[in-house]
Every structure is written in C-alpha cells, then in structure tokens.
C-alpha cells in the first residue's frame, strides 16, 4: 500500500516507557500544522488514539528508536476503531501516524452515486469504477443519450385479438367483467380453470365463449345494458361480447358478472381471455374475482398512464420504480426536484373535478393525468441539451395541476372582482425569486391580475395544447344531458379572456437589484410594465411574467441555493453579499452558478448550472460527501438499490413493485408524492425529516425489507419489497469467504457506505462481524462457518446483519 503524499501525517515522540513526551505535528500537503494526538499506557499496552478524519481508508503507524533516523512501518499493533494498541517493548520508540484517505476518484464515485443517483447499486459501483466518475457525470447530464429499456415503460402492443392469462388464488366464485371508464371493447373465449396452466381442464365459466345469449349465464348491470353479442369481431365460434359501458364500472353492480360453480376460495386457478379494442382509444378493461384474488388489467402500467387510465397509486408506483431502475438517474432526481419545487397537490385537482363528476375513480384518473403529464414534460424538457429554467417554469405555469392548486383557475380580475393572490405570491416566494427577495405586496397584487383568465376546461383532444380554443362541444354518445360531465374531451389549460383584468400593470416599479449582488447585477432596474390587453391578447401577461422572473438575479440566486442544497450540503442560504472579499466557499459556488446561468445563451440552462456544481471542489471533496440526510424517498429507494443486482439465476437480488412504498413515505414524515399540501414542497434539509419517531419508521422499513418473504413483519414495509442479500454476496465473494463473518461483513459495509473509507468503518465492520458470528440470543458464539448452521438460519443471520448495517446512522446519509 502506497503512502499518499497528500495524507495527514502525525508525529509524536515517545521517550521513556513511564513518561511520555508528546510532540504532535501534522502535515497537510506540504504545509506543517500541529494537531492533538493522545497517547496512553495501560495494562502493559501502548495506546494511540488515532485522529478521526473524513474518508480515511487506512492508517499506517511508523516507528523509530532514533528520532533523527528513518521511520519504519510497524506491524506490532492492532487497530480497533480509532485506537491503535501494541504491547510494551523494552526500548523507547518514536511514532508517526499516517492516515490514507480514499482516493479523490473513489470519494467522487461515492458522491456521484449518492447525489446524481438514488444511491449506489453494487453494479453501478463497479461500472463507475470502470468508466470514471467524470464520465458518469457527463453521461447523466445527457439523459437523451442513455438507452433505456425498462419493463415498467413497456406499452401495450399488438393488433387484433390479444390474449391475457393470469394465475392466482381465488377469493370468491363471483367474476366481474367491467370497464373502469366509459367505453367499449370486444371480449371472447374467457376460460377459468383449476391449476396454473391456462385452458387446461374444465372451464368453470358458463358461456365464456359467448356462443349463447348473454343472459341468463351472465348478469348485466344497468350501465352495461347496451352490450351485445357481436358477429363482426370474433375470436372463436360465431360471436364475441361487445362490452359497452355508459359509466365507469368498479364492482358487481357496474359489471357483467356470474357466479361460477366449483370454485373454492383459497385454491389456485388460471384465468385466460382474448380482447380486441373497439376504437383507437384504449379500453379500461378489468376482469376480476370479487375480492380481487385474481384480477386482470390487460393494459400495461405505462399504457394506462399514457392514456389517463391510471390512479395516483399507479403513478406513485411507477415514479418510485423509475427511481429504483432507471439508468437516467440524474433525470429522475431532477424530475423529482422540480416536481417538488413546482409543487402541486393531486387532492386539490380532485376537489376541483368533483364539481363536475360524481365518479371518484374517474376524478382520480384525470387528476393523476395532470401530474403525470407535467412530470413527463419536465423529463422531456430535461432531455433537451439547452433546457432552461424558463422552460420548466412555463410547463408548471400551464399545468392544470398548478392552475387549480394555487387558485388561478377561478381567479377573476374583470370588473370589480379582486384577483386571487395565491399563485402570484407563491410564484415569487417559492418558485422564482424566493421569500422577501426583491418584491412587495403591491407587486403581488399587480401580478395576481396578470394571471386572471388562466384556467382549465375540457377541450377537444386535438385542442389539448391550444389554450385559446373553445370548450369541447362533443357529448358522450347516448348522453341524455348537456352537463359538463357528459362532454368528451381532455381537461387542459384554457385561457378565459372574460375573467382577465385588462388594465395595464406595473410591477417592481423603481426597484433596482441591491448592491450585494455585485456586478453585473447590482443597480439593474427590473421594473416590469405590462400594457392594457384585451381579448385573447391578455394571455400574454402571464408569459411576460414568466419571461421576466425566469432570469432575475434573485431567481438565479434562489435556484442556485436550492440546487446546491440538493447536490452539496444543507448550509446554503439566500442573502450572501457577493461583493464580500471573504465570501464563503458556499457563497462563491452560488455566485458561480449564477454566472453560469447569466452568461450562457439562452440564460438559465440547467446543465450549465449543474456542471458548475459538479466541477466545484465543494461537491467533489469531503464537503460534498455524506453531509446530507436522505429524504424518505431517497432513503427507501436507496435501500432497494443498495442490494439490487441480478443474481446468478436471473432474478433481482432486491426489488419493489413501488405500490407499498408510498405508505412508508407517509409514515416517515408525511411525504406523500404529488400530494404536498403546502406550496413550499418537501424540505431538502435534515431537521425536518429526522426525529426519533421518523427514525423508528426508517429503521422498521429496512428491517422489514431485509426479512425473507413470508417472515412475520415482512408486510410492514410491503411484501413486494424483496431482498436476497445472500444471493448478492455469493455472486460477489468466492465460496471460500461465504463462511467468514469478517469477509461477509466487509463486503456489505463496502457497498453500503462507499464514501466513508474502510478505516472509518472499522467499528461497523466489527459490529457486523460479531453479529454474524453470534447466535440469535446475542450472547453465544455461533460461527457463520459452523456446519450446524442450517441454510435457512444462515440466510436469516446474513439478513439480520445487513438489516443491522442499514439501520445505522451512516446509512441515513448521502
């Protein structure tokens, strides 16, 4: 092992066995400095208390009997944690201690995988070690060049008749066929058989091939009454079922159903069927048993999201699975950052739509669609090399979710109406310039008038992106009324000029950028005057405000601070005096980000700002390593990723279906994705997330996650959050190490805490080793290598040790 020339070197002299003379000297690079090191003699042992320094990978202890002579590395001692101990010998010796830090590359590797990604995976640690951290940064900054083929993004494909099979445990003999939305679909040859092989054995369904009249084998609910047998589209025989739903179905009372004979709850059966779309619209088809023991949705998750057929639970699951699986990790981090920055609240959209619709499922799908669409727009924008903050702000301002969330949707400024100030206030305070950063109440009042008319409405699908188009006039076929709920179309941004305050508006009049910003900003006037505008021209007020706010120095500062907090550490703040010659490194980095924002055209390019952060010493050095605490989302996703690799049999060694994690996030401090009540978004800094109560939830999650499937308590974090640490370890360690507690402990410590340095982790490694070599009673030695340890107990032991390591404080950090 080479002694690194940039290490700290500590010297001290030891003159006589009984009387220690302590001389401390540390050198950092070429410069000498002094430091305090402790030396004691106890029980015939020499003890050196090693200096505790960031990212220390190893210590070296050198000795000499002649302080003027050469120091030789000594092998007499043993290091335990931060103590070096050696037996007393006959002669006096002088000692020098050297700490060997992680290489800058190893430190940066750990940092980029914890900041530009939702935590390291074992495979990514290996890959980034191969390609280099800077290559990883460049790769992640250009997500459009990363090829992705994720199963969760597969769309429903095929043409004509498509077959679906699903095997499961029966919960009831009642089977329901329904559409969760208004629409129609063709179904044929439905079979329900015992066992796991489709179509093998007796079909327990009567008239599943629809060769007989629908009734009486099937019972048809009122909303399904226009369904018919059809001879035009047939998969087999002479007819299929043309299922037509005039309102959304969800249960027996809104489905076509029958009670099967010979079906026993708890037994295994296989359902198979063929379906054919009736139009270009995807059908929201469900086939399921009462109680959902066996349930089939033929469309993929992504297709349902793309076609506004997904619930917010679906969206959350997909969002979380993308965080776990995507190779475009930085894009996912940034999408979540902007989703949280331009925060909205799915329940507010639901509440708004509730004025129109009675169907809660339909309301949820539309509201979820708002969230999905804005997130997909951010992803698409972030894939443009020159994506600016202004692009992202525009997406947010036009999003129905935002228009509803902060009350712009109903705000009126015409006549004597007083515009609702909510959006204008939060736009300034939380989305652009930051609180009290260059505006006052009058600016808010004026700006609130600019947004009047920005609203949402149901438009023809072809008009979705034209806010000046009229409301849809097409009604659902067979609709008996002209209520809004009967209109066909898509809810989207629509400008209602009748609500607009047509007067001229003056904002920030007479205000100039304060001197603390320094050149080139200080003293600039940033007044914004908007002329009187009538009719559809009034929509321009909002776009003028966006353009004006997007690149104000206050906005540059506020966004730079937030991004630095995201990627470096918590201690950045608004209000630096950028002209101060003693400006802190944090202040200087914020200013550098602002320069990158200001001096590249177009202004406000996200990648330019990020590159500035990623190339800064604050990010790349110890200040960027593990000073932050993970948010609940980062914590749970990083836990899954930490153990996620492909095992030798092709399955994943850690996985999640995403559906149970939202409950966990809520417990860890009410982090409900797409449902933040307050417009400040979830905090990026630690104190708001870490208390004893939230830590209890974090610890329970990783303990449950590390349990084997079926273990008591496994369902606490969600049974679908699976882990197989033994398979992961066996893939990466030679068989000769599988029984060695210390080797197994070192492996897991290495992948779980890559930024810390092995010497700093010595206590963790020893603790895990002891755990691995101790029986469940916590007392009796029980070596991992013992032949008496059954395979199941071996598995449990390793799960316990990994669970222990993941409950430790350092796993909370990034």
């Amino acid at each position, binding site marked *: 092992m080479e002694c690194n020339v940039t290490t700290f070197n500590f010297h001290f002299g030891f003159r006589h066995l009984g009387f220690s003379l302590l001389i401390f000297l540390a050198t950092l690079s070429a410069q000498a400095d002094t430091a305090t090191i402790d030396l004691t003699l106890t029980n015939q042992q020499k003890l050196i208390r090693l200096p505790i320094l960031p990212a220390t990978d190893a210590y070296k202890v050198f000795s000499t009997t002649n302080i003027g002579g050469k120091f030789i590395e000594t092998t007499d001692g043993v290091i335990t944690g931060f103590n070096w101990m050696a037996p007393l010998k006959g002669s006096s010796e002088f000692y020098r201690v050297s700490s060997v830090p992680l290489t800058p590359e190893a430190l940066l590797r750990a940092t980029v995988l914890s900041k530009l990604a939702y935590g390291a995976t074992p495979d990514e640690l290996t890959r980034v070690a191969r390609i280099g951290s800077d290559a990883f940064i460049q790769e992640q900054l250009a997500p459009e060049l990363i090829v992705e083929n994720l199963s969760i993004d597969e769309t429903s494909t095929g043409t004509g008749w498509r077959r679906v099979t699903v095997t499961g445990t029966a919960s009831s003999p009642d089977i329901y066929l329904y559409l969760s939305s208004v629409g129609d679909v063709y179904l044929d040859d439905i079979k329900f058989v015992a066992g796991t092989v489709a179509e093998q054995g007796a079909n327990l369904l009567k008239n599943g091939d629809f060769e007989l009249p629908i009734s009486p084998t099937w019972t048809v609910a009122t909303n399904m009454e226009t369904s018919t047998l059809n001879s035009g589209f047939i998969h087999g025989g002479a007819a299929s079922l043309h299922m037509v739903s005039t309102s959304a179905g969800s249960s027996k009372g809104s489905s076509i159903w029958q009670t099967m004979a010979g079906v026993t709850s708890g037994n295994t059966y296989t359902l198979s069927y063929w379906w054919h779309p009736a139009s270009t619209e995807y059908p929201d088809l469900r086939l399921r048993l009462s109680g959902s023991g066996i349930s089939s949705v033929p469309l993929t998750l992504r297709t349902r999201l793309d076609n506004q057929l997904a619930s917010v639970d679906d969206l959350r699951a997909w969002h979380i699975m993308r965080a776990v699986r995507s190779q475009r990790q930085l894009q996912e981090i940034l999408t979540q950052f902007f989703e949280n920055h331009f925060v909205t609240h799915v329940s507010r959209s639901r509440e708004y739509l509730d004025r129109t619709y009675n169907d809660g499922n339909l309301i949820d799908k539309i509201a979820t669609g708002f969230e999905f669409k804005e997130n997909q727009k951010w992803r698409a924008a972030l894939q443009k090399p020159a994506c600016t903050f202004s692009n992202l702000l525009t997406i947010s301002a036009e999003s129905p979710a935002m228009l509803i969330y902060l009350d712009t949707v109903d705000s009126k400024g015409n006549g004597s109406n007083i515009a609702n*100030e909510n959006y204008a206030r939060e736009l300034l305070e939380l989305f652009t310039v930051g609180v009290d950063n260059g505006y006052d109440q009058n600016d808010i009042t004026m700006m609130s008038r600019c947004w009047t008319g920005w609203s949402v409405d149901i438009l023809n699908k072809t008009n979705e992106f034209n806010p000046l188009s009229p409301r849809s006039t097409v009604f659902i076929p067979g609709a008996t009324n002209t209520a809004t709920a009967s209109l066909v179309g898509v809810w989207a941004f629509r400008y209602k000029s009748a609500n607009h305050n047509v007067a001229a508006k003056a904002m920030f009049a007479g205000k100039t950028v304060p001197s603390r910003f320094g050149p080139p900003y200080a003293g600039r006037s940033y007044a914004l005057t908007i002329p009187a505008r009538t009719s559809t021209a009034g929509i321009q007020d909002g776009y003028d405000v966006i353009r004006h706010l997007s690149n104000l120095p206050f906005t540059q500062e506020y966004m730079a601070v937030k991004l630095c907090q995201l990627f470096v550490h918590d201690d950045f703040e608004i209000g630096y005096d950028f002209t101060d010659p003693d400006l802190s490194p944090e202040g200087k980095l914020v200013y550098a980000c602002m320069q990158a924002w200001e001096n590249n055209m177009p202004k406000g390019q996200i990648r330019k700002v990020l590159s500035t952060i990623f190339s800064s010493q604050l990010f790349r050095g110890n200040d960027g390593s593990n000073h932050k605490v993970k948010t609940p989302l980062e914590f749970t996703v990083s836990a899954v990723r930490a153990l996620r690799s492909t095992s030798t049999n092709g399955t994943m060694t850690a996985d999640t279906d995403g559906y149970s994690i939202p409950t966990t996030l809520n417990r860890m401090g009410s982090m409900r994705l797409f449902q933040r009540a307050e417009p400040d978004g979830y905090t990026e800094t630690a104190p708001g997330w870490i208390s004893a109560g939230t830590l209890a939830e974090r610890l329970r999650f990783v303990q449950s996650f*590390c349990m084997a499937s079926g273990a008591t308590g496994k369902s606490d974090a969600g049974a679908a959050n699976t882990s197989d640490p033994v398979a992961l370890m066996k893939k990466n360690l030679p068989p000769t190490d599988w029984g060695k507690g210390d080797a197994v402990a070192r492996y897991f410590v290495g992948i779980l805490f890559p930024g810390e340095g092995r010497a700093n982790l010595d206590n963790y490694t020893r603790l895990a080793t002891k755990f691995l070599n101790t029986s469940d009673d916590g007392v009796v030695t029980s070596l991992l290598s013992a032949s008496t340890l059954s395979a199941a107990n071996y598995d449990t032991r390793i799960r316990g040790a990994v669970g222990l390591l993941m409950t430790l404080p350092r796993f909370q950090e990034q």
Partner: protein
Amino acid sequence: MSQLNLITRRHFFNQSAKVGITAALSSLIDIPMVAKRALAGDVADGLGLNGKKLLFIFLRGANDGLNSVIPVGDSAYNLTNRPQIMIPSDPGLDYSASGGCDFPVNSSPTDPTFSYDMAIRTGNGFAGLHPALKFLAPVYNAGDLAMIHRVAYPKQSRSHFDSQSYWETGDPNKSLVKDGIFYRTILESGLANKSALTGVSIQSSLPLSLRGSEAAMTNLTDPTRYNLFGIPNTAQGNNKADAYLRESAGHRFPGKRNRDLLSLQYKNLNDTLNIFAQLDFSEAGNIFTDDAPIDGDDVAYNLFPTSNAKNGGYAAHGNAGNKYVVDPGSYDFFTNLRAAATVLNKTDAIIAGTQMDGFDTHTLQGAATGSHANLQKRIAWSIYALRKYFTKYADKAAWKDVVVVTMSEFGRTSVENSDAGTDHGEAGVMFVAGGSVKGYGKAGVKNSVYGVSPTDSVPWQVGPTGSMFGDSSKRYLKRAVDYRSVLGKVIRDHLGATQDQLNRIIPGYTVVGERLKAGGISTKDGVTITGELPIV
C-alpha cells in the same frame, strides 16, 4: 444565535462541574438560572421542574378569527362585507349584556348537536362565538378559558410559510431563525438531552416550534408503531438487533453536518422506545369518556372522537349523524390529540402538541355550517375534551398544571372574496385554556374575552374605518395584542421560566420599543398594543 451560546455554556459548565462546583458557580456568571438552581439543589419550582406542562395546537392555514370570535357589536361585521359567510346574530339576544357565555344546550337527547346557528353570546358585552364553538362555553364558564382577539405581530407577513415560522420561532420578521420557541423553552429547562422525552409532537413531522439542532425533540407519526423489529423477528432476535443498535451509538465518526443531529435523534429513539412500550396508543385503548352527559343528552360522550361510534351521541341514538360533536373528517386529528395528551399525562414530557390543518379557506368557507364551521367544532371539542381528560384521568399532568394554547399564523381578510372565501389577513384569535388560567368568574375576573370590545385597553374601533379595516390597505383586522406577549406570559408565569430565560426563549422580549410586557405604542410600526394580559 443565543441558544448556541447557551449550549456552549452548558458544555463548559458540565466540564467545569467535574473540577469543582464552587469554582463553576463563581466563574460562570452566564449559566442559565435553572442550571444554577439545579446545581445548588434548589430545583422545586423552575421551568421544566415544577410539574407545569403545555399542550399546543397549531391551526395551520390561518383561522378566520372574525368568524371564530365574532365582533357582533361592530356594524362592519355585516352582509355587505361578508355576504355568504357572515354568522348572523340572534335577534332575541342582547349581546351588550355582561355575564357568562351562553351555552345553547339541547332540550332533548335526540336534538341535533349543532341546531343553534347564530352567534353565541360570550357575555363580554360585544362579541359572539361561532355556533360550532358551543362546547367552549362550559370551559369558559368554569373560568378555565381565555379568548384573545386581534393577535398578530409587527409588519405582519401574509405568507403562510413566513408567518407560521415567525410564530414557531417566536421571532417575527427574521427568516434565518431555524429553531423553535418551544425548543428553546426546553433548552432553558435544562432537561434537553437529559430526559428522554421533553418536547413531543404528534403529527406528520416535527414542527418548527420544536426544531433545533442541539437537542432531539420527538415527533410521532403513529405512536402504535413505535417499536423496532429484529431478524429473525422473534423476542430473541429483536433483543439482539436492539442491543447491536445500541452498541453502535458509541461509534465515532468524523464530524459532518447533520451527524450531531442524527446522533441525538438515535439516542432519543433508544431512550423513548422503552417508555412507549408501556403505553397503549391503540384505538382499542381509546376508552376515555366524559364524567357526565352534556348538551341535553343522556349519555356521556367519548372525549376523543376517533370513529363514528365514539363521536358524540352518534352511536347512542341509532347512528344519528346529527349527534356528532365533530365532523368525521377529524378522526385523525383526534387520534393525534389523544396521543399528545397521553404523552403529556404519562411521561415527563413538558411540552406536547399537534396541528389541525385546513384553515386556508380561500373558497367556499361556509358560515354556520361548512368547512370553517367544521374546523371550529374541532377547536371547541379539543379544549372541552382536554379539560375533562386531564381532570378525570390525571396522572403526571393534572388540569391545574396544563395550559392548552392554540396558534395560527394570521387572520383572514375582513371582506369576503369572489369565491365565498377569505384571503390572507393579519390579526387573528388565540385560545388559552387550563385549570390555572385566570378566566371568567375566578377571583374577580369579570370576563376573559380579550381584544374584542370597545372597552378594551386598546379599544376595538367599530364601523367602516374601524379595527376591521385598520391597516393601510383597509382589508385586514388590525392587531392589538402581540402573540409573543401571550406565549411569553404562559412560558414565564405558567411553565416557570425566569424573565432572563424568557428573554432568551423569545429574543428581545423586554426590548422597550416592542412593548411586549407593559403595552404601548410599538416602535416597530407605531401600533398600540396591550402588552401582557392577566391570563395565567
């Protein structure tokens, strides 16, 4: 910041104590008073050591105080200014009469709980209560409640986030204060980092009022889940996991931002797990009932309505929804409130609290019924129930030792907006309740409704240019009381802080121009305020 100095002093003090108490006392004149007393063995009556406790409820979103404690006697409180949300006064009542608070009690057990839909006469000669606040009446008439109107602070922010943080830090108009008023109270008590539980919140996450980086306060999202697992998840396995986790607490690492915070909170977790193992927070354990029937009913109600069956007279009268005492949407809140009360009653915690959401009524606020009315029901029943709970079930906290205080970031506009709601305003209402509150009927107190009368020391001005339109933009209720005077009075005279301690808990408390103590014209903005009120 002051609390950092305090901690430094305390650390220094701890080290000094090892070498000699006398030396420490004589050389460290800046030691907090309570620490000196603790050192001298005189610990009986100090902050945190006198058995006095505080329960806070933060009404997030800004409660419309004008529709909580209603200025019935002000002609500007009218249908022109509040066309759809005004609470009408009762034509059969003389609101200028003085006395106790009317309690519109039902005459039959099956009458709807909230059948009375007009302003309840408070008896202060001017103000009424929202009818959904009817259950405040028995607390008020027992002398255990003070209601304080026109509460705000100088240069009022109308941002939820700023204003909530000013209330919670106790330091208005300073955005960089990142620790809370109750956090500093607990630091001053000397119990921080000694007692396992000192300040506790029961809500989604730790509120700013309890937040600070030098001591770990506890937030519980769900107290029934407050235990850990082991792998294997057996008694032995759990003990092993627990022992190893505790062993790791001694592991040292290089200092980094947030590592002290993590260490403190891990320590707090370890310390509190044992305490909570002894308490039953389950729904089945919610068995607390009133000591007697009220409101004309013939059954005693559950104190913490956490299900329909436990909500007023619902179950007793054939599942009658009109017998609810609160709306069914409030069960999560009352689950949290019960847990906060339990923690205060069963542990050494001195401050506990929770929050009630949903007060940001920009649209369709409602009048005698509706969303704002439902929130008023929650406020009133909370205070009613806490009084009964800490009386009937008192353990480590009796009602005489508890003060309940509500906080809300600001009031709302005096004039209704175009969405039948109200926007962000200025002054609002605080409720302060407790067995030792100096309320109506106690020792010469003729009324304990403050801030809402023309006879107040800072008189309520009536009419179109009066208090309801008292700021420059003519839309907001002008302040007459500073929230710091209310909280400061409670922290000093109830919890037992010395004035010196209070000056650190609420920075600048005795700065002359603030007028927080004796009242007068605030030099911050020229507004006349009352100073401290004789509430405790």
